[in-house]
């Protein structure tokens, strides 16, 4: 009975992951996509523990989930630092507007 319940919870989390992937594909800015990937990674950590409980091998899947949580955290921090250093990659960022003002001034000249 509890295995069926865990399978339902896992399928529900999987459906919510696919719904979150919409924001990762469509999201207007690069950091929206980064946020979606971070949320999907956190859900994956939970899903790994649920899979381990269904297979009755939690002691093995716990280590995989812990390593995945660490990797997800490091990847998010690294990507956020990267986009913080290169602001012109983000639509609506300041560098693009500065560039456009410069272009308008040069057009007037």
């Amino acid at each position: 009975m509890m295995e069926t319940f865990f399978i339902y919870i896992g399928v529900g989390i999987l459906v919510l992951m696919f719904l979150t992937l919409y924001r990762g594909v469509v999201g207007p800015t690069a950091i929206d996509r980064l946020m979606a990937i971070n949320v999907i990674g956190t859900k994956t950590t939970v899903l790994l523990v649920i899979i381990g409980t269904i297979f009755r091998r939690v002691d093995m899947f716990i280590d995989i989930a812990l390593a995945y949580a660490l990797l997800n955290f490091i990847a998010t921090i690294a990507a956020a630092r990267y986009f913080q250093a290169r602001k012109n990659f983000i639509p609506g960022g300041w560098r693009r507007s500065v560039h456009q003002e410069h272009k308008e001034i040069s057009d007037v000249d």
Partner: protein
Amino acid sequence: MLIDIICIGLMSLGLFFFFATTIGILRLPDFYSRMQAAGKGDTLSSMLVLTGLAVYNLHHWSFGTLLVSVKIMFILVFIFMASPTASHHIIEAGYDAGVKPWTKGEEKNEQEGKEN
């Protein structure tokens, strides 16, 4: 049976908060509000589901299952610290890049490459 009831309650509540997080990520108007929904709801729902699994794991009481439950609690504590930190860094990157916050009366910031 009490352990099963506690586990079902915690995990159903966690799935509900995952659902609320996804609704917030899909429907809120701009980047900052979506980030708020993602950061808070994801942390709380992960903690609820993992607590339910740790409680269910104590079904057969022995030293091994206790160790596994403590390790699940380690994952929980790590998510509790790491997820707000990651949210803070993502928001800091967006704020430094000058992404404009949404104000009342504007359209939703949904279009690709829209100049705001």
